[in-house]
């Protein structure tokens, strides 16, 4: 397609391809000047158009990404109320000391960590196994891929509402199944660990297929020679998986781990909508309040935007620390292997 359009593009009269005219003495001079002008324009174009192409992205990024990032840091040092967001009063680090003194902050931090682990680890492990199976020669392979991606098309809101019903204590489908195999009813919304597992289930359901596709793509990019030589060395399929596939996937695994970690630190909609009391506290006893929900509660329910900014920046700093640890570990792993 590309070539057709290219050759169909009418050759411009400008630039070096100008048709040669029989050159008289004065027209040659004019021609020379015209060429010089065109060549200058050409050079300007070559020099500046790349910047013209990338600048909209960077302008928008500065306006909606970088500036807010810095302004959040600035706001976190002030007392700002939601009712009058422009009245800012210098507060130093008071917002930070206030949230660090708040037991609900630490509770939310712990919940974010546990929900993050319960949702990310099984999700990535299952995605890896699924990708491995999808990498076989399969009948109707496209069908499985599309079916597994369907949850990704479902919004947080719709998914959370459905899972609230499925996890209902008295009439929910999941308890009914558990009951029929002999378990007691579990109070998925009010008990700490069940509620965290339920919230994680929504996340796992939505993202496992997506991650499986990412792993599958990376698996398909592994050159066959590696498996060939492993097989010649007598490695069976399981050894091949651990000694060829996994090492080759390491960059992709790291990538999904980083993305999932960022996602897990942001969890907000699922616990918000899973709350039976329709509040922002993550359950009656804050049993599944995440940092994202705590931020919302401080900023928009309690109307302390300054404090919410401090929470946002604390979350960011935690992420940076996790990122650095991730980086160091992966460097070590690479060096040792």
């Amino acid at each position, binding site marked *: 397609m590309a070539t057709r359009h290219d050759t169909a593009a009418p050759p411009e009269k400008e630039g070096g391809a100008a048709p040669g005219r029989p050159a008289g003495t004065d027209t040659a001079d004019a021609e020379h000047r015209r060429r010089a002008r065109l060549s200058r324009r050409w050079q300007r174009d070559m020099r500046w158009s790349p910047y013209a192409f990338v600048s909209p992205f960077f302008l928008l990024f500065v306006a909606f990404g970088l500036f807010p990032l810095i302004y959040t840091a600035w706001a976190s040092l002030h007392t700002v109320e939601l009712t009058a967001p422009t009245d800012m009063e210098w507060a130093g680090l008071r917002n930070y000391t206030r949230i660090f003194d708040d037991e609900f902050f630490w509770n939310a931090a712990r919940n974010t960590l546990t929900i993050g682990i319960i949702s990310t680890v099984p999700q990535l492990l299952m995605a890896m196994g699924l990708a491995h199976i999808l990498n076989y020669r399969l009948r109707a392979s496209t069908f499985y891929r599309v079916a597994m991606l369907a949850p990704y098309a479902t919004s947080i809101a719709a998914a959370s*509402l*459905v899972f609230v019903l499925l996890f209902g204590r008295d009439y929910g489908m999941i308890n009914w199944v558990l009951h029929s195999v002999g378990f007691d009813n579990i109070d998925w919304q009010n008990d700490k660990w069940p509620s965290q597992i339920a919230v994680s289930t929504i996340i796992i359901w939505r993202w496992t297929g997506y991650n499986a596709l990412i792993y*599958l793509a990376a698996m398909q990019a592994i050159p066959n020679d590696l*498996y060939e030589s492993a097989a010649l060395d007598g490695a069976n399929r399981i050894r091949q998986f651990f000694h060829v596939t996994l090492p080759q996937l390491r960059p992709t695994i790291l990538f999904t781990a980083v993305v999932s970690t960022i996602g897990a630190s942001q969890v907000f909609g699922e616990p918000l909508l899973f709350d039976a009391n329709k509040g922002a506290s993550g359950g009656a006893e804050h049993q599944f309040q995440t940092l994202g929900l705590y931020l919302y509660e401080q900023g928009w329910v309690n109307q302390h935007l300054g404090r919410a900014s401090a929470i946002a920046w604390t979350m960011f700093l935690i992420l940076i620390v996790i990122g650095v640890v991730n980086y160091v570990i992966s460097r070590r792993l690479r060096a040792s292997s």
Partner: protein
Amino acid sequence: MTTTTLTEPETPTAGPRRTRRSKAARAGGQLHAGPIAYVILALFTIGSLFPLVWTAIAASRNNNRLAQTPPPFWFGSNLMHNLQVAWTDANLGKAFVNTTIVAGISAATVVFLSTIAGFAFAKLRFRGRGALMLIVIGTMMVPPQLSIIPLYMMVAKLDWTDQLQAVILPSLVSAFGVFFMRQYLLQALPDEIIEAARVDGASSWRVVWHVVFPAARPAMAVLGMLMFVQTWNDFLWPFLVLTQTGNPTVQVALAGLGRGYTPDQSLIMAGALLGTLPLLLVFAIFGKQIVGGIMQGAVKG
């Protein structure tokens, strides 16, 4: 950290493809799947689709039936009624129009801006290219919640609460989009074509219109769909700025159904079904392309 992540898997694909595969090579992932593999796949497929199917089942019942055990496993007769009530109760008509506008504008803009920026990063030489590309990748790592407070202040100051431009503006930029288009154009657009156009005297903009856009069309379509899905499903930011019920997006309307005091679960399920259906339709039609697009973005990303 990311650069290694992103570039490493590229090398294997760049190498020459083997046309003849030995038996040993086949052992590496080309084997036919056995029955166990199909069983596992079937379980995951059921797990993926069951909640969606059950949404429809619950939406076709009434509230009393949902408050009984065992829960319903088959459709009832209330579907149309519930859909109608949910449609009006949650202001879903308006929500659909709003979400289509928001997702359409932001997907189109992201695709356009990502294509020209991706082209520049893939094919043009300019000072600072490497550093700028690193910034693009770096921005993919910055969590969006960090910017919502100042954005909210801006929106409040401009008096844009409950207006669509407040939702649209921050979604016009996507680092992933730039990265995705760059990776695609690196391999899909041969340098010779650009050079040929240049020799013919085409300016950079002409090259973009007549060479880059036609070459990038498949990737633009995929990116457009991905961005549409993402914006359609956006929750946090619309939830914060569209606080009144008069002008919601679909997600805000659904959250309103769940958080309001609607006791009727079958109505809530009808709303959830309506809010999900358009995207499921898109997936049913373009699923293959979307899967391909995600995998394409993934090998290199």
